[in-house]
């Protein structure tokens, strides 16, 4: 349809597809110049470790966002899972691995609860997960009586503190989960249907897809990845803290959106979300290295977030207005 001047569109098309990575690269380069210790293997591993918690929760969040939904309960679910696992492993006397397993299943269970409210209760995801956010946080406080649970054994803390082949265990967990969910999204029918629901739920239903089952899978996975995030943080802290994960849902949403997910649904992916989570992690780490006070860091993070989203919007906007809408409009 448009034959003239192909170079500019190609460049903007490249930027459009890769804006998250370009931003990540720019921030990394910026800190590398400003703080010499930033670009060391040790520090980068620290960044990866710090990004893991947000990244795990953001993976589940991405699925929910692609379907056009959202999961606000991830932070509370992380806390609940960590507390349950620690409590059952220590004072419950079940041992570490049954405790971890039950913690993970509790996360998946909260996801199932979300899905039941959304699919059968027809409650909008925002409202349903807002409710379960309160419920999970409340259950955590009830279970812990608001006090930390300490006394975790080596097998538990292994998942937060040890390394394998020089790479911290949490990063291994993240890698495995990210690869699995990426394959799920890009190679399986379930994955395609997740995108399809975000693009047109009724159309998807009429094509014979069981939309309810797909949503159950999405929210259960989101609950489970949130639980993993909570378990790993508990292992890293050597104790369960009832107040962990406050605000995690916002970081997870930010990571997904920075990674190119559209809150309108139908668009998003795991590689982008990981890059989004790393942008957040790199920012914290770099600002710490530059000794920016933590209160000021919040302001800067917020500004970077806005800049990144606006940049993305402008790149896409140019493309849509110039070429995409033209053939459709009369």
């Amino acid at each position, binding site marked *: 349809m448009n034959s003239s001047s192909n170079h500019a569109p190609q460049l903007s098309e490249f930027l459009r597809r890769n804006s998250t990575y370009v931003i990540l690269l720019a921030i990394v380069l910026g800190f590398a110049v400003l703080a010499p210790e930033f670009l060391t293997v040790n520090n980068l591993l620290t960044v990866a470790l710090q990004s893991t918690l947000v990244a795990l929760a953001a993976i589940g969040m991405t699925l929910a966002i692609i379907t056009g939904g959202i999961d606000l309960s991830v932070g509370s679910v992380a806390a609940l899972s960590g507390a349950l696992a620690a409590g059952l492993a220590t004072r419950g006397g079940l041992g570490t691995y049954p405790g971890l397993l039950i913690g993970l299943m509790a996360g998946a269970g909260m996801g199932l609860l979300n899905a039941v409210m959304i699919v059968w209760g027809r409650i909008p995801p925002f409202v349903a997960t807002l409710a379960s956010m309160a419920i999970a946080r409340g259950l955590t406080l009830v279970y812990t009586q608001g006090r930390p649970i300490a006394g975790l054994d080596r097998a538990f803390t292994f998942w937060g503190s040890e390394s394998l082949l020089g790479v911290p265990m949490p990063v291994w967990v993240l890698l495995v989960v990210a690869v699995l969910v990426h394959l799920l999204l890009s190679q399986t*029918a379930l994955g*395609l*249907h997740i995108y399809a629901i975000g*693009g047109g739920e009724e159309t998807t239903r009429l094509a*014979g897809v069981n939309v309810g089952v797909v949503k159950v899978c999405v929210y259960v996975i989101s609950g489970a990845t949130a639980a993993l995030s909570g378990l790993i943080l508990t292992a890293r802290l050597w104790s369960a803290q009832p107040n962990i994960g406050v605000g995690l849902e916002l970081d997870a949403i930010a990571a997904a959106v920075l990674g190119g997910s559209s809150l309108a649904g139908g668009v998003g992916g795991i590689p982008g979300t990981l890059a989004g989570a790393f942008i957040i992690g790199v920012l914290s780490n770099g600002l710490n290295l530059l000794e920016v006070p933590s209160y000021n860091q919040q302001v800067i993070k917020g500004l970077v977030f806005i800049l990144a989203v606006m940049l993305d919007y402008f790149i896409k906007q140019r493309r849509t207005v110039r070429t995409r809408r033209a053939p459709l*409009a*009369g």
Partner: protein
Amino acid sequence: MTENIPRLRLEHVSKAFPGVQAVNDVSLEVWGGEILALVGENGAGKSTLMNLINGVVPLDSGKIYLDGQPVTMDSPRRALELGITMIHQELALIPQLTVGQNIFLGREPRRWRFWIDWKRLYAQAQAELDRLGIDVPVQARVADLSIAQRQLVEIAKALSYNARLIALDEPTSALTERETETLFRLVRALRDQGVALIYISHRLEEVFELADRIAVMRDGQLVAVGPVQAFTPAEVVRLMVGRELTEFFPKVPTQRGEPVLRAINLRAGREVQGVSLELYRGEIVGLAGLVGAGRTNLARLLFGADRLEAGEIWMDGRRVEIRSPRDAIRLGIGLVPEDRKSQGLFLGQSVRFNAGAGLLERLSRLGFIDFRRINQTIKAIIERLRVRTPSLNQRVRNLSGGNQQKVVISRWLALNPKVLILDEPTRGVDVGAKAEIHALMSELAAQGMAILMISSELPEILGVSDRILVMREGRIVAEFSREEATQDLIMQAATGQLERRVAA
């Protein structure tokens, strides 16, 4: 045809909704290898009938037979399995997915149960497109396709279910003439392969060109059915509306007044490349051209909905800056947009809300809205436009297309603009309401309004306009008076075989 059992037989089928007998005792047969045109005004029951056949809504009474066997249609999925598909006005494709993914959504070729066999999926999708001679890349995202391409993909999707009965609801409403021809070729080819086709359209020329038989519905009943040769277009219209329509496009000759709006060398992107035009009081200017010629873009520029890159706009002899629709409205310019559902209406809101939305500021005192005056104003206009609605509180979503369009127009009338731009004002509107909208335009012009009407229907352009402008590739390439214009001349100009410098 050799078959002696109809593909589909409806026996005394009825369906009522609260307050309406939508389908009333309809018996109808559709045969393999024929195109049956189903015509009727909006609200005549065509859509409900299709929804019954398609399993979207259950029957109240009556029976449906498929190839002589009684069947129950309890879901669209069931209908699909039986080989019945429906192609809706609003396309049912997912824009974020590719062509291939859309065609096989819900039945992707798999490996090891869960994994999609992408190679096979795209190969099969390609085969489906090739079979129909559709030239659309299978890996392209649907969002990147034109409306016509999407329509073709939708048909390919329907056929990939081995559809034996396809219902098409207003499939050409968004297509250009050439695309329509492609679609017609495809529809005829399907008929020749033995598929049964139900074709719903408001465009009678299409019906007479394409159909083998015509079925006319009115008020939920089937009022006539027979071979196309048995009808004339005028008869069909009479059957549809139940009264004689004196003229398709009533036109009151008007006296052209002084110029109101003058645009000089407007530019914005590729779509509008230096357009100059003048609109006079009391005149209806038809803006013709192919889809993509830049007509809608021009309208949006004049209305301030898009940014002008260069050029001047003058109103009443004064140079004006239009930076937003707000500016345009203040200057007395109104736009009835092409896509009334997403740009013209608040579908979930009442008639009152929709018609009064423009008046809020004008009719408020000290920042408080004067609801009483708004009500009076709206009531008068709604009655004048003869909007058929049970009350002002009716949600606009529940009105027919023609009445919805009248509500959009009524919002502008409440503001009494000097210039009213109408973009495809009668698309998806039934014949009765269409004639009313045309009459209204004529009346408004007679009262001194300047009207710019964009239309892709040449008979409408020729019937309604005092003067006709033709756009092609972002420029106005020809101007005709009402007397000299013909379909041929306009098409030649629109397709680039003719240029006539405009005296702007």
